[in-house]
């Protein structure tokens, strides 16, 4: 009886553990092994040659890889900055005690709507809307008189990257707004009341109370957005039929990884890019974490 109870928990976690080992851990090691070979992705790994760190040497000198990092970062930063500004603005006005805005529930639902929709569908939708000649956006802007002639959104590197940033903003500002609003709503009321009594103005209240209080949440938003942003794939792939054009400006890290692995049958090198991506993710997360908490560390040292 007692023995049975001892084995019981293992029986319960067994399905989780077995599937986790087979479908998560083993593939991670397998991918790492691929990265040390010239495996094409076809005919089994036994037919591949072990080439040691050659793929990694290639990776750190690969201009396309660095370009893909730069593209991904530019698109992410553009989208995130605008998204954060809009979301923070919304969260501030909706939590303002003097304004007492109505319709929070309505606007939260509405602004979150673009996030719920399949990215693949969004991508195809925007590839139609942004079309140079027949896209509804150019047609609309010309009809209202904002544009004199159509802009070829997806044919110029800067416009193309900007377009993807804007689409990302459109998809994510609602979610960021919901999170930041929750953070601001959770701030201790005593702090705000004290600031009123001390005669702090709007800006001082924002700068010295709201902002420091929601810092951990901003960090959370930033890191989750960064991790998602570094894995950007659907939009650039489907907007460009997988090419990452114009001039490779939409070739993101994961699009490069996908094309190397499945288009050019370069599984070995694709796996190396995957590990490169992992490394970049860790580095950037640490940088964000450190910069956000740099002043706190200093304060700690002073004490």
């Amino acid at each position, binding site marked *: 009886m007692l023995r049975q109870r001892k084995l019981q928990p293992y029986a319960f976690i067994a399905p*989780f*553990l077995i599937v986790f080992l087979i479908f998560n*851990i083993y593939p991670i090691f397998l991918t790492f092994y691929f990265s040390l070979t010239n495996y094409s992705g076809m005919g089994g790994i036994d037919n591949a040659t072990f080439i040691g760190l050659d793929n990694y040497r290639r990776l750190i000198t690969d201009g396309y890889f660095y370009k893909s990092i730069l593209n991904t970062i530019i698109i992410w930063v553009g989208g995130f900055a605008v998204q954060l500004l809009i979301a923070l603005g919304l969260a501030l006005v909706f939590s303002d005690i003097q304004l007492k805005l109505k319709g929070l529930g309505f606007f939260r639902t509405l602004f979150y709507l673009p996030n719920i929709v399949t*990215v693949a569908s*969004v991508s195809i939708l925007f590839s139609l809307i942004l079309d140079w000649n027949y896209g509804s956006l150019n047609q609309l802007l010309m009809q209202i008189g904002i544009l004199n002639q159509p802009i070829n959104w997806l044919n110029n590197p800067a416009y193309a990257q900007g377009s993807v940033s804007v689409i990302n903003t459109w998809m994510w500002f609602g979610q960021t707004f919901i999170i930041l*609003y929750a953070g601001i709503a959770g701030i201790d009321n005593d702090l705000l009341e004290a600031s009123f009594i001390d005669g702090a103005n709007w800006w001082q209240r924002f700068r010295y109370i709201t902002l420091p209080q929601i810092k951990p949440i901003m960090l959370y938003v930033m890191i989750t957005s960064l991790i998602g942003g570094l894995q950007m794939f659907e939009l650039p792939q489907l907007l460009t039929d997988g090419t990452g054009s114009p001039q490779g400006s939409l070739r993101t890290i994961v699009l490069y990884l996908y094309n190397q692995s499945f288009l050019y049958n370069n599984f070995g090198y694709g796996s190396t890019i995957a590990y490169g991506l992992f490394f970049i993710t860790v580095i950037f997360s640490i940088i964000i974490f450190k910069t956000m908490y740099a002043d706190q560390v200093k304060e700690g040292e002073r004490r």
Partner: protein
Amino acid sequence: MSARDKTISDDAISLSEKGHRQVIQVNIVRLVIYVLLGLLAIVSLIPFAMMIINATRTNGEILQGFTLIPSNALMENYDILISYVDVWRGFLNSLMIAVLVTLLNSYFSALTAFAFWAYNFKGKTFIFGFSLLLMMVPGQLSMLGQYELASNLGILNTYWPLILPAIAAPFTVFFFRQYLYTSMPYSIVEAARIDGARDLLIFHRIVLPVLKPAIATQGIFTFIGSWNNYMGPLIMIRTPSKFTLPVMMGALSGSPVANNLGAMYLGIAISVVPIMIAFMFFSKNIISSISSGAVK
């Protein structure tokens, strides 16, 4: 009226005037904000409006320009779309996968969370910590290995590699375990044991019902995640009739449907509108769980 009284009443007037001015000021600010919110709402909705309106227009009409007035080519576009792409098949494929993924994910995560919550066993901390650590690893790291594994197991071009991994979802396990710690007294399990109930029965009869709200919350996100998954089925599935909806959408622009923009817009609308309607029903739960997830 003495001079002193006069200044006091002057002060009172200027004070109320000041207050009055402030009220007007707040009203103006509020008006400006509402206008901006309205604009933002339009920006949020206009792509969907373009999608729905253009789905009812002929190719020729769309080429001519954009208008907010729907036309009457909906059925025509539908016939064109359906003659090349079986959207409803993709819809059913996606639905089937998402339902199975959600069920497996919820049940086995609950079972695992129960084991982590109710027992002390060797390796408990290690297994839990290790799986949490791996949660941080991007999916791309296991993707190519998973493809090879599926190929070796002979389950490439089937739904197994998309469904089975749902059994091991560290984040859901973590979430359920936290939930059990905060809302389930351990004494209930002990009492049931004394009554002679077997542990699996305790899990099914007592723990699962308690976990219901947590399962609902997490289940919505699991379902959406599976429904929207593009890269997994893109890699694993080759036969067009087995395509999920997102992969089908991706293949749309390379298909003959692309010659008719109205049919294209309709295809996208079919993939988008049902999930939007479902969202309207669940939006309160979704938004509150995003909010609570952030504050934790």
